[in-house]
């Protein structure tokens, strides 16, 4: 089967994630969209690894997973602390800093 389709899928997922970041309001959903982008990249990495016949892509994918998990922890901590002080997880409410 053509590995190229996986690349198409990865690009689609990445784009969906990027668009999601633009249109979703809830910080956690927004963050999930970013995770989607990372996972789309993982898919692309693994597929390219397969096409190229090297392991680098898979190793990179492992590390991306780890880093994504660490990001989740840090991100959730920040979002939680904001939620507790503002009672809102909408990113549009975090709007004191501008101009």
């Amino acid at each position, binding site marked *: 089967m053509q590995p190229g389709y996986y690349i*198409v899928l990865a690009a689609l997922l990445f784009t969906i994630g990027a668009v999601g970041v633009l249109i979703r309001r809830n910080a956690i959903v927004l963050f999930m969209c970013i995770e989607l982008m990372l996972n789309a990249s993982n898919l692309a990495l693994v597929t390219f690894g397969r096409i190229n016949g090297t392991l680098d892509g898979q190793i990179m994918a492992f590390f991306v997973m780890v880093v994504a998990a660490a990001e989740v922890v840090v991100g959730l901590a920040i979002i939680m602390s904001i939620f507790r002080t503002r*009672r809102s997880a909408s990113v549009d409410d975090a709007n004191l800093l501008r101009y």
Partner: protein
Amino acid sequence: MSLSAYVPILFLFALAAAFALFSVGVSQIVGPKRANRAKLEAYECGIEPSPEPVGGGRFPVRFFLVAMLFIVFDIEIIFLYPWAVSFNALGLFGFVEMLLFIGTVLIAYAYVWRRGGLDWD
């Protein structure tokens, strides 16, 4: 296979992103912005709902904390599993590396434990 097959991907990416830019931009420009009090209120009757009791500050944060801790320890397996599979090939070097890795996770564990992250109450 030919890599020119990816050209449509990039186009797709561009198209989708352009669509997003367009729709977000247009809705900002043409969308009516007449916020009023009634519109901003929650679509519910009765008293104003509040996520938490007033003056409280109680917040079911434990699940979230546990979830975060779970993630931290869960990551270990990503590195442990490949190491275990090719244990023989990696030899002593791999063993020491893995000990160091677990050691660093333990340091984090010690921190969580001492700072009360594991207390459930």
